[in-house]
C-alpha cells in the first residue's frame, strides 16, 4: 500500500475533529486552548501534505507563517488567561460571564 495524499487528509480531518470536540466539551480554558492548537496543527499537516504532493513550496511557507501567528496567539492568549484568573479566580469558562451581568 502506498501512502497517498488522501491518507494524510483523512488523518488531518480526524485530528481536527478531536480538536473540535475538545473545544466544545471541555470547560478548562487551558485545555480549550490546547485543542485549538491541535486544530491549527491539523491544518498545517494538510498544507505540508499538499506541498509535498503538488511539489510546491508555497504550502511550507504558509505553514511557517501559521506557526509564527500561533506563537503570537499563544503568548497573548496565555497573558489573557492569567489576567482573567487574577480577576475571576478560576479557569472554568462557565464562570467567565462578566459581560453577561
Amino acid at each position, binding site marked *: *500500500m*502506498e*501512502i*497517498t*495524499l*488522501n491518507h*494524510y*487528509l483523512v*488523518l488531518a*480531518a*480526524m*485530528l*481536527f*475533529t*478531536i480538536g*473540535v*470536540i*475538545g473545544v*466544545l*466539551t471541555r*470547560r*478548562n480554558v*487551558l*485545555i480549550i486552548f*490546547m*485543542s485549538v492548537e*491541535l486544530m491549527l*496543527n491539523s491544518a*498545517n*499537516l494538510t498544507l*505540508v*501534505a499538499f*506541498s*509535498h*504532493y*503538488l*511539489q510546491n*513550496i508555497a504550502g*511550507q*511557507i504558509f*505553514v*511557517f*507563517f501559521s*506557526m*509564527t501567528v*500561533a*506563537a*503570537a*496567539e*499563544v*503568548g*497573548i492568549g*496565555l*497573558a489573557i*488567561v*492569567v489576567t482573567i*484568573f487574577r480577576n475571576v479566580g*478560576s*479557569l*472554568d469558562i462557565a464562570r467567565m460571564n462578566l459581560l453577561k451581568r
Partner: protein
Amino acid sequence: MQTLMFIVLSVVTLFSALMVVTRRNPVSSILYLVLTFFSLAGFYVMLGASFLAAVLIIVYAGAIMVLFLFVVMLLNLREPEEIEGRATVWQHFGFIVGIGVGLVFLAYLATGTGAGAPHVADAKMMYAIGRADWLGKELFTRFVLPFEIAGVLLLAAVIGAVSLAKKDRA
C-alpha cells in the same frame, strides 16, 4: 517501510490527541500535546519538510509548551476535579456537534476529493525543497513582505503581552 511508519505515527498522533482532550489534569494534557507534536514532526520529515519539522519541535514542543506549563504552575490550581463537574447539556451538545464535523469531513473525503492529485514525480527534488536553504531563499525573495509583516506581528504580540501582564494597569 513508509507505510509502516505512517501507521505507527498516525496511531501515536491520534492516541495522544485523544489524551490531550480527555485528561483531567492540564499538566498531563500538555505532555501528551508534546507527544502529538513530535509525531507530527515525524510526518513532516516523511513529507520532506525537514526544516519545518525542526521548527515544529523547537518552537512548539520547546517554547510554546513550556509557556503553557509555566502558566499552569504559575496559576497554582487547586484539585483539577473542581473545574470539571457533571457534564452539562451544552457539553453533550458540543460532543454531538464535534462528531457531526467529523462525519462531514468523512463524507467530503469519501467523494474522492484529492484522488486525482499527482504522485511525486521527482522525489529527489521534493526532498530538496523542504530544506532550509530553499525555504530561506523563497522567504527572502518572493515572500519577503509577509516575512516583514510577521515580524511586526510578533512585536505587537510582545507589547500586548507585556501590557496585559503589568499588574498596576487597571
